[in-house]
Every structure is written in structure tokens, then in C-alpha cells.
């Protein structure tokens, strides 16, 4: 089972994503800001990270930079409220592998999971 880290300052988002991803047979950890996220990662490197951009203490961009430097192999998916062309390019330029929009469109989420982690729906719903 793949391990994923969800980073978002909004606990509801975290819970939701965790529930959904666990239903999709992932093991999910939570962090509420960039700082925490890095601590988690240092403790145990996950297979993938869902990273929100706007967070207190340390925001997503900063965390992303650090992650890219220290853990280049980890797949990072950025969570963002607005998806303008600029953000998408920016996200990729900064080294993330993908981008999902809040609120999460189930189809889009599944597509992203498939693309990033080679996940298949068959493993959903335990």
C-alpha cells in the first residue's frame, strides 16, 4: 500500500481527502502546515504528498522548494483553490507533478491518482 501525506491548514479538507484516499486503499497521514509536513517527511518519506499552497507558518511554495531539494523522488500534487494557467505552469516549474482543484472533482482526483501513482479504481472501497 502506498503512503500519502495530505498537507492542508483546513482540517475538513484534510479529513475528507484522507477518508477518500483511504477508501481508495492508500495509507494517509496529515499535516497542517509546511513545517509539520517537512517533519513528517523527514520522519518517514511517503510515496506522495498532497500539498496545499496557502498555509500559515510555512506555505506550500516554500515547502515545495525544500521537498524538491531534499526529496526529489517524492511525487507532489498541489492542491489549489484557483487554477489559472499561470498556477499550473508555475506548479510544474517548481517541480510538482500535478495539480488538483478544490473542491475535489472525484473524476479529476481519480485521474490524478492514476497518472501519478498508477492507481486503478479496482482497489477502491474496501
Amino acid at each position, binding site marked *: 500500500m502506498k503512503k500519502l501525506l495530505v498537507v492542508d491548514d*483546513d482540517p*475538513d479538507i484534510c479529513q*475528507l481527502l484522507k477518508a477518500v484516499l483511504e477508501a481508495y486503499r492508500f495509507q494517509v497521514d496529515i499535516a497542517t502546515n509546511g513545517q509539520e509536513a517537512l517533519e513528517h517527511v523527514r520522519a518517514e518519506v511517503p510515496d506522495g504528498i498532497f500539498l496545499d499552497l496557502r498555509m500559515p507558518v510555512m506555505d506550500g511554495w516554500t515547502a515545495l522548494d525544500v521537498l524538491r531539494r531534499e526529496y526529489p523522488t517524492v511525487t507532489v500534487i498541489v492542491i489549489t483553490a484557483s*487554477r*489559472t494557467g*499561470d498556477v499550473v505552469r508555475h506548479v510544474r516549474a517548481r517541480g510538482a507533478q500535478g495539480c488538483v482543484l478544490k*473542491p475535489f*472533482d*472525484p473524476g479529476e482526483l481519480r485521474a490524478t491518482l492514476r497518472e501519478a501513482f498508477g492507481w486503478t479504481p479496482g482497489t477502491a472501497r474496501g
Partner: protein
Amino acid sequence: MTFLQRYRGQLFYKYVVIFVTLVSGTLLTSGLVEIYFSYQETRTALTRIQWEEAENAALKIRQFLKDIERQIAWTLQPLGTVPFAQRRDDFYKLLRQVSAITELSYLDASGREQLRFSRLSRNVVGSGVDASRETKFLEAKSRQAYFSPVYFRNEYEPYMTIAVAERGLDGGVTVAELDLRLILDVVSRIRVGDAGYAYAVDARGRLIVHPDISLVLQKTDLSSLAHIQAALAGLAMPGEERSETSIARDRHGRQVFTTYEVIDPPGWYVFVEQPLEQAFAPLYAAMWRTALLLLVSLGIAVLASMVLARKMVIPIQALQAGVARVTSGHLDIVIPPAAPDELGMLAASFNQMAASLKENQAALAQYTADLEAQVTVRTHEWQASNVRLKELDRLKSEFVSHVSHELRTPLTSVKGYVDYLLEGIAGDLSPLQRDFLTRLQGNADRLLRLITDLLDLARIEAGQMVLYPERLSVREVATEVLETLRPLSVEKGIELGIAGPEASDMVRADRDRLHQVLLNLTHNAVKFTAPGGTVRVRIEERPAREVVITVADTGVGIAAEDVERIFTMFHQAYAASTSPGGSGLGLTIAKKLVELQGGRMWVRSQPGQGSVFGFALPAAEPEGAR
């Protein structure tokens, strides 16, 4: 030219000229009139004088000749009836009585001289000289009396032959030789004025007496002179007054004033003449006097008028100077009133006016200053208020975007949870649960759309909408949009398609925003078209280097009054219940997004005939040109 350009300060000269003209005109006129009448009077007087002289002379001469004729006639009787001695005595007496007769002779009926008495030579009796062929005899016999032309003896002595015939065929003729010297002296002695004179001519115009005797001796013929000719041809009877005297030219060509009288029987003419210059000398003198007077008066008039004009013009000039000063802004001028007349009054009024102007000017300056102060205050107020307004605007935009963001966050959670509940992530759902959750989902969607739109609008209005233009194909984006709407269109049974030429659809625009605009327009079109209808998207390039996209539907159309307002915020053409999900901001945002990218948007619609929404975007530059 304007008045000021034409101005030449001519008042003074005008007055002078007018005054002088008046005075000299008057004098001149009266002078001329006087002269004219004087001339007429002089002429009349001269005529009188000259004519009287002429008449006198003519009368005397005529009388003289008549006397002689009478006396001669008195002696006449036929020889047969008068004893010879008697006749001789008569002749002797006659010779003695009339000194002018120098010779008396008697011709008998056949013209032979029978008796001759002479003062100058011997008396001859019965000479028998035949004078029957001579004019004197013939004329006397036929006309009773004969007066010969004047002839001269001893060079300068004028003589005349008078022959008088006795009555009857047997009558003889008495012939007298007349010495005309004395009688003609009457004429040559006539003097008129300083240079006037008289002379006489015979019936043929030859001088018979003249103050200058040499002229007579030269047998001067004056018949060529016009006035002589006129006299010779004249028809006026002696004694008739001539009202006109003529001005003619004498032998020397000088102009003379001439009158004449005729002496008939001999048919002589007495002329009394004087040179025109002398004749009218007094008149000329008068004319010169008048002219001199006129000149002097003129001079006086000029001087007087200059003085007068100055007196009048100076106050006016002072006034004019005063006005000029006032015009140029110096209001302190005071014109001293010269005299207590109208001009003085004018000066006083002017002073009042200047003072009043000065007051007004001060008041005006004060008012202007006050006004400017007020303007400054107001301007500051407005500037401050402007700053506040700008600040307000900024705060509003910030507020909206902040609030929108804050609103979005929990909403995304709500939607997320609901969506995944419906996915079955938390377990199976009962039909009722599913129903409730579906309703929740719908509402959450709506809320989210509304907030997203609000946020977009706020950003556009605050100028914070960031666009990422790229060179793209409108057709490509439109195809994406149509694919998104295909399920809905199929469900409603509406035909959905793209039309227009394949090429020429490249624009430079923000892809996501273009997608948003097209989706909004097309979704509306599908929403408001009944099943069986058509929604067509047409894309084509127009000559003004722009690409025009139209979304045409066969829906219900839009009422005229709504067409005007359709792009305003929150306007919904239909009750919310029939158009689920509409935020009311879609068209507003679409229009603004298009305008931000250099385009424009419009709508054409008629109720019941569908609508056409259109927008234009600048065409992209041709490939390769950058």
C-alpha cells in the same frame, strides 16, 4: 477697417473747414449776385447814355439836313414862273443864311445849269453846262430829293451834294454842295466816359466822321465789322429805343460796347462806342474790391474758426484721452470740467463713471479672490474625497476578494464531503439519504458558482484580473466547450454545432477565460432553447482584423427592454426557478473579460425569434510575426 483704424483726429479740421466754407460761401454768393446785378445795371445805364448821345447826334444831323432840304425846296419854282432876278436873290439869301452851303446851282428841266452861286468861286450865270446825265439830276428828278454819298474835297473836308427837284415835268433842280464839317463835328465831339467816342458811317459802311480824322481820309471801310453789318442790315426805325446794346469788336479787335442810331434819309449811322474795359471799369473795380474783401474775410474766418474749433475740440480730446486711460486700466483719471456747459457736464459725468468703474473693479477683484479661495477649499475637499473614494474602492475590492475567498474555503469542504458521500466513500446510501445529499450538492454547487463569479468580478473591477494571453484557436476552445455541454444538449434534444470557415480563427487571448466566456454564452443558449431547437456557434474573421464569434439560438428571445440591461449585474431574464445555477453575473463577467482583451460584446434578439450573442476579439498576428 475698424473705426479705430480709420480715426484721424479730424474734428478740429472739420470745424475749421465747415466754418470757413460757410463764411466764404456766403460772401462769395452775395458778392457774385451783387456783381451780376451791377453788371446789368451798368449795362443798362451805359446803353441809356450812349444811345442818348447817338440819338442826339442823329437828330441834329437829320434836322440839319432836313432844314437845308426844306430851305432849298422853298426856293424852288419853275424858271418860267420865277423871274431870274428873284431866283438869284433867293440863292444869295440862302447862301448867306446857311453857312454850310458852299455852292448852290440851278439846273433847268433839261438838266442844263442856269445859275451857280458859290462861296468859294465866282458865281456863274447861264453857263448851260449839261448835267442831265449826272446822278444828282436824274435822282432828284425821279425822287424829288437826292442826297449824295459823302465825298471829300481838299483831302479831309467832307461834302455832300443835295439836289431837290421842283414839282412838275418842267421843274428844274436845285443843287447844293454842303460842307459837312461843322455838322459832323457834332459826332466827333461826342465823349462818353473816359474813352468813349462816336463816329458815323455812310450807307455803305464807310467812315464819314471819326475823332481820328485820318481814318476818315483813308476812306476806312468798316463794313466788315459785325456790328456795322448788323446796323446796315438793321431794320429798327429811327427813334425806337434799343434795349440791347451790343458788345462787339472794333477795327483793332478790342471789345467795345456799342450803340448806334440811324440817320435817314441819307442812310448814315451814328455809332457811340466805348472800350469794354473802360465801360465796365467801375464794375471791374467793384469785382476786385469784392475779391479782396472775400480774401480778407476768408483769412479772418480761418483764424476765427481755428480759435473756435480749438475751443470745442480740446475738451473732447481731453475726454478721449481720459477714456483711453480708463480703457488701459488707469481709473484714477479725473478730467477737470472746463466750462459749465454741455462739454463740462460730459467731463463731470465721465469722472463719475470712472470712479464708479474703479469701485466695481475693486468689488470684482474682491469677489474673484473670494471665489478663488472657495475653489481652493472645494478642490481640497474634492481631492480629499477622491482619495477617500479611491480608498473605499480599494477596500471594497479587497473586502470582496477576501470575503469571497473566506466563503469559498468552507464551501469547498461542504461540496467535497457531499460529493464523496454520494460516491459511496462512507458507505451505501438509502434512497432518501441519496435524495437529501443530491439536493445539498445542488445548492453547494450554486453557492460555489456564485462566489466564484463574485470573486472574478471583484478582481476585474479592481483591475486585479490577471490574464495570460496566448495565440490560440477559437475553434479548438469552442469544441471543448461544446463537448462539455453535449450531455445537456442531448438530454434536451437540442442540436449543437460549430459553423464558419475552418481557417482564420486564431486570436490572442487567455485560454481559460475564453473558455469561460464561450461556456457562459453557449450554456445560456442551450438553457433558453426549447427541445428541438438549435444552438450554433459561428466563428469567422472580419476585415477589421478581428475574429467574430456568434452564438445563435432558436430560443425564446429577449424582450426589447431587457436587451438593454442584459449585461448588467444580477439581471435575469427569467425567474430563477427556470434557470437553475445561474448567478446572474455570467454575462456581465463575460462581457468584461472580452473587453479587457480588446474586444466587444453585443446581443441581438426578438421575443420568440431566438437570440444571437456575439463578441469580437482581435485576430492574432500571422504565424511567425512576433
